[in-house]
């Protein structure tokens, strides 16, 4: 299973949250600017009766990325995303959507923002029980005042996008959880928003359906390219979907990074625990996840042959073997072209220096540092230097995402 990491790194910022606080309760001032020092959430609750849900949170979501907000139950994820749409009023701080501070919006502007810019998908779906699927999907458009025929045509299109064709006239109660959430996603997409906020959309579904929905979300994202703020408490889900991940604990963000960073450099014990608990990487070995490459080159082939082989298979690198499958190294198209230009006759001159390698019983967890430091596949070589197979960096991350079920299955 390959991780979806092909989003264009875009520095444009869609959502920016700066020093956001949210405190539930009546004595908000007491918590915010008092001289008394508090010792954590429970202390605040005991002394002031307030619940500190979000504590000085800042982060940025880039255009077109899937930004995952992860944390245990009660860590304040839902409160945070609700603040962004001001479904809950933040206590202090700034929320910039495309540079505009949501906290300063008039009611009118807020309505516009919700109608056009951001849509939300909810854990408990939030479908209208008295309306059929078509009407549910068209709801956001109806609220905008779009004519019936127009909004229903658009809704129909979205229903087809999420694969629910034929269910238009059913009530939500006739649908399974997974299908209801598809309706939720279709409804959110129907207004063609720039951004989606998804609050644990798949948490209520059983693991098999959940995985399927994740795949579908990635497929859909490939078509629609939205900026997605995705909330989950499941590390596997975060690693699979996230271009970047923020980890929340007790209302604070304690780490932000891409999946590799989170896995390889957990910022503190809390994250490490999270990662370890969830990780089959501790038991899997390289042998289990290695694959056979489609193309292998041999040391006696000339650079032009090598180029021809690589180009005809649309690859930009391949391993080079000697007699008896002895592992020699890796060449890239780029290096080969240089060699040809310089009049070189042997592909051995084009080998990448300092290539990393591993053995068949290396534990996947130990492959993470290798995976992060190279763009190339990692060769698996036995004690005699014989080539056994290759591991793609994406497979390493993908292996973590495989559920326990698949583990047991094979």
């Amino acid at each position, binding site marked *: 299973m390959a991780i979806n990491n092909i989003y264009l790194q875009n520095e444009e910022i869609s959502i920016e949250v700066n020093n956001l606080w949210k405190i539930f309760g009546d004595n908000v001032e007491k918590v915010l600017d008092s001289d008394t020092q508090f010792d954590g959430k429970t202390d605040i609750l005991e002394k002031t009766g307030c619940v500190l849900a979000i504590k000085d949170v800042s982060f940025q979501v880039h255009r077109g990325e899937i930004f995952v907000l992860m944390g245990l139950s009660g860590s304040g994820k839902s409160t945070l995303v609700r603040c962004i*749409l001001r*479904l809950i009023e933040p206590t202090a701080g700034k929320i910039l959507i495309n540079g505009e501070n949501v906290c300063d919006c008039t009611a009118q502007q*807020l*309505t*516009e*923002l*919700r*109608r*056009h810019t951001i*849509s*939300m998908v*909810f854990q*408990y*779906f*939030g*479908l*209208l*029980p*008295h309306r059929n699927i078509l009407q549910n999907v068209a*709801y*956001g458009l*109806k*609220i*905008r005042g779009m004519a019936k025929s127009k909004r229903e045509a658009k809704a129909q299109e979205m229903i087809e996008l999420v694969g629910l064709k034929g269910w238009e006239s059913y*009530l*939500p*109660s006739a649908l399974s959880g997974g299908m209801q959430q598809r309706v939720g996603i279709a*409804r959110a997409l129907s*207004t063609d928003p720039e951004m989606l906020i998804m609050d644990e959309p798949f948490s*209520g579904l059983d693991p098999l359906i959940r995985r399927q929905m994740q795949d579908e979300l990635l497929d859909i994202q490939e078509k629609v390219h939205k900026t997605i703020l995705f909330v989950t408490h499941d590390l596997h889900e975060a690693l699979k979907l996230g271009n970047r991940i923020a980890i929340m604990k007790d209302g604070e963000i304690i780490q932000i990074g891409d999946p590799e960073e989170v896995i390889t450099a957990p910022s503190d014990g809390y994250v490490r625990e999270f990662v370890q608990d969830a990780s089959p990487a501790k038991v899997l070995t390289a042998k289990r996840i290695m694959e056979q490459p489609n193309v292998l080159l041999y040391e006696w082939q000339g650079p032009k042959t090598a180029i021809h082989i690589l180009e005809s298979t649309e690859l930009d690198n391949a391993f080079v073997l000697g007699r008896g499958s002895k592992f020699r190294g890796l060449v890239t198209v780029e290096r080969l072209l240089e060699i040809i230009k310089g009049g070189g006759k042997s592909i051995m001159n084009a080998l990448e220096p300092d290539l990393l390698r591993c053995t068949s019983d290396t534990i996947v967890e130990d492959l993470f540092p290798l995976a992060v430091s190279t763009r190339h596949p990692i060769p698996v070589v036995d004690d005699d230097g014989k080539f056994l197979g290759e591991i793609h960096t994406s497979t390493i991350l993908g292996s973590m995402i495989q559920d326990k079920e698949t583990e047991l299955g094979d």
Partner: protein
Amino acid sequence: MIEFPAFIHVPLAEWTDAAMDWILRVFSGVFDVIGDAILFMLLYIEKFLLWLPWTLVIVLVGIVAWRATHRWWAGLLMAGFLVLIGSFGYWDLAMMTLAIVIAAVIISLLIGIPTGIAMARSNLVETIIRPILDAMQTMPSFVYLIPALMLFGLGKVPAVFATIIYAVPPVIRLTNVGIRQVSPDVIEASRSFGATPRQTLMEVQLPLAIPSIMVGINQTTMMALSMVVIASMIGARGLGLEVLLAINRIDIGRGFEAGISIVLLAIIIDRITAGLAPKQEHSASSS
């Protein structure tokens, strides 16, 4: 220290009279307008009901009851009840009673549903109105006759007025409850799509509150019917007056016929309004 001292005397009665006088003096124009409107409405409903051929009414009631209850025999039974009322010689009186009930219910809904909505949307309004409703429902019904009498004198208008006051609490209460019990998930979803509070009310809360509101309408109608009998004391003509006269004359047979007619009318109205409430097929709403 055996008898309560006479000098401790709170002149509540005098104050009430004074307040009533003041209200009558200052607002007499308002009450005239209200009274005229009620009378106008009532007369038209009454005229219409009496103009309808009895055969048509019986057939219509039969069909509506059948449709509402989804049972053909219920339709037949209701139609039979009407025939029975007619056979007692009370057709016209029953129609008059029905006219008062209909007028009172229409006005009750016009007042009650918006009030219920206001209550649902504001905790303050709820805290104010709830005890008033509680008080209204514990009060004996004929107490309402007094202010009605003072404001509008004798006749049909005070009867309708008293009936409204007596019958309006259930629809207010159940509108409030119906709206408040709508799942917050659904409301949040609606808000998240940029629905204004008004849109959320019209698209989500009211439609989902309809089963509850229908129960309220049913209860209001039944209470209106029971009040109409009592309101005959201040001059509402109809079946109630017939019962009242029979009591005064100790004419048991006649009183029984009139009483039975009222009961039959009540059953017909109850079955039809209860049947019209949509079945809660989507009660397991959102999870």
